[in-house]
């Protein structure tokens, strides 16, 4: 760790640490990647070596009504959840940013609370509550429950973007005669857009990947993709499940990857801004 001469012990510790790190990264990444080749197997069993390559399991996934229905449910529920959570969460984040009162911290804590509680408790509590309201086994029920889980991500991401936002800009727009809505649309929104988009992506992935709430709230008609995979794995794993898992994986990794790019871009901008001012 010191500059200059290194003892042989130090060199071997460093080499050891690197090999260890490499091994652990293999441990982290291999299980994620292993479903990829398996989903293209021409055989019936999920074993290596693959007997040959085939798209048959993807064909099954995209034509079998059980899977197409699950995919359609997941996409639609995800889109509605994203719209709801992004609208509510962005408004709340802007409100919190402009509010200097002491209780603003308590509001923030309340809004992120769903992340802190084990999701199985949230799911069961929602199930009892929705059972009384007749919302179990409805699309509305799943959408509302997913929105509760997605909202904290939007609030947190948009709040983070607002950290660097100067409220005087809105005041300037207002003094020039802009209505609050016009000021929001032309001044605030373009500046916080990366945060809003990140929050929206986060909200979509949260809903798209969500399983536990779906287990309790969905009837067979509303089965989402994760819910369908879960029942498949609990019964017997057919290769179609690996195709479904790859679809789930590609969507979430792609969207989260876009989010990461947005995050890095805004960090760079922040640093550049910090240098000029």
């Amino acid at each position, binding site marked *: *760790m010191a500059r200059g001469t290194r003892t042989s012990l130090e060199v071997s510790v460093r080499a050891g640490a690197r090999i260890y790190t490499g091994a652990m990264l293999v441990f982290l990444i291999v299980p994620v990647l292993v479903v990829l080749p398996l989903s293209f197997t021409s055989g019936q069993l999920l074993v290596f070596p693959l007997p040959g390559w085939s798209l048959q399991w993807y064909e099954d996934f995209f034509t079998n009504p059980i899977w197409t229905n699950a995919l359609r449910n997941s996409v639609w529920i995800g889109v509605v959840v994203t719209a709801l959570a992004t609208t509510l969460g962005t408004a709340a984040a802007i409100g919190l940013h402009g509010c200097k009162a002491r209780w603003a911290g308590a509001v923030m804590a*309340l809004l992120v609370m769903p992340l802190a509680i*084990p999701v199985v408790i949230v799911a069961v509590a929602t199930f009892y509550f929705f059972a009384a309201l007749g919302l179990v086994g409805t699309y509305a029920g799943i959408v509302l429950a997913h929105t*509760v889980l997605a909202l904290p991500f939007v609030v947190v991401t948009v709040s983070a973007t607002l950290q660097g936002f100067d409220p005087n800009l809105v005041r300037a727009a207002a003094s020039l005669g802009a209505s609050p809505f016009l000021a929001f649309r032309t001044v605030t929104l373009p500046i916080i857009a990366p945060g809003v988009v990140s929050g929206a992506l986060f909200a979509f992935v949260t809903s798209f990947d969500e399983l536990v709430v779906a287990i309790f709230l969905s009837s067979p008609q509303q089965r989402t993709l994760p819910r369908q995979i879960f029942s498949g794995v609990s019964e017997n794993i057919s290769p179609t499940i690996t195709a479904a898992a790859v679809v789930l994986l590609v969507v*979430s990794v792609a969207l989260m990857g876009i989010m990461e790019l947005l995050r890095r871009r805004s960090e760079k901008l922040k640093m550049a801004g910090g240098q000029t001012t």
Partner: protein
Amino acid sequence: MLALMAPSVVFVCFLFALPIVLFLFRAIDNAEIPEALPRTTAAIAEWREGELPPEPVYAALVSDLAALRGTPQLALLARRLNYAIPGFRGVVTRTGRLLPQSMPESPKAALIAIDATWADPAAWGVLRQQSGKVTDFYLLSALDLKRDPSGSVVDVDRDHAIFVDLYGRTLTVSIGVTLLCVAIGYPVAAVMAQATPAAANWLLMAILVPFWTSLLVRSTAWVILLQNEGLVNKTLIWLGAIDAPLALVFNRTGVYIAMVHVLLPYMILPLYSVMKGISPSHLRAAASLGASPVRVFFTVYLPLTMPGVAAGATLVFVSAVGFYVTPALVGGPRDQMIGYFIAYFTNSAVNWGLASALGAFLLVLVAATYLVLGKLVGFERLKVR
């Protein structure tokens, strides 16, 4: 500003906070019995235990059960009383079915003639204990305790005692997973923090991609990898390390492997951000004063990284205690944790009071961890990125 926050606050209060409060209340709620047996629960309050209740109590029960006859409430009441007095389901349904159409001369004799349990003061004692609007029955059950007919708290029979074991198992697995994550994650985060920016970027991606992948996909992948014909066993056999496949999945080993895999990023990412913030000049200063690398590590580096270890360990532990899906997929019947039993008592066994009591204890465990470790670490550190 208030108008902008209000919709979210109302939304979360109504669809999150209220359901959680109602869920916790279910752990002590006993309205079912007083509502089904209004006359009996009122009459029984007068009764002194030790002997059989007087005729009016029996008469009250006859009228209550007569009112319930033919309604679904009778079956619900029978199920509810069966939790407290095993075998009572049959007693209640039989009594409801065989009840005379009009009030008999002696309700006491009539009920005892239908079922001899009504001549047992102990059964009446339990019924009286269960006649309040709230009950400690579910909370006690979730601790393997019950009240005996005299009202004092005693252990349940050994055959029925499953929950203390369950908490022990949940804690053992969660602490084990947390320690494994610290042991595996610490060197990885340290190597990442000292790597060149380009290398660190690649390492970060290797951690973020699994982190972004759904827990379900990762647990499924482990089932595939660890099964007898799976890649891990096949590789070990090919290497000659083993002759027959090892049992790696649907047991505790599988649970540890998959849970560590799922939770490791929650350890590495906060630890990495703390380690990246440590100025190398601290380490150089210590070394230039003659400290050996081992000493630099233990007296400078390790103490500086402790906030990251504590933050990561808190995140891993509170996630682990609430796990449900991963143990359900990769564990065996004896590896299930609290979350599984909350789901089980909600869906399969339909004992919502007990599910709520288990949920209440899980919530207490999570809240206590946050309060103790969160205070220690600082809540603002408790985020992954």
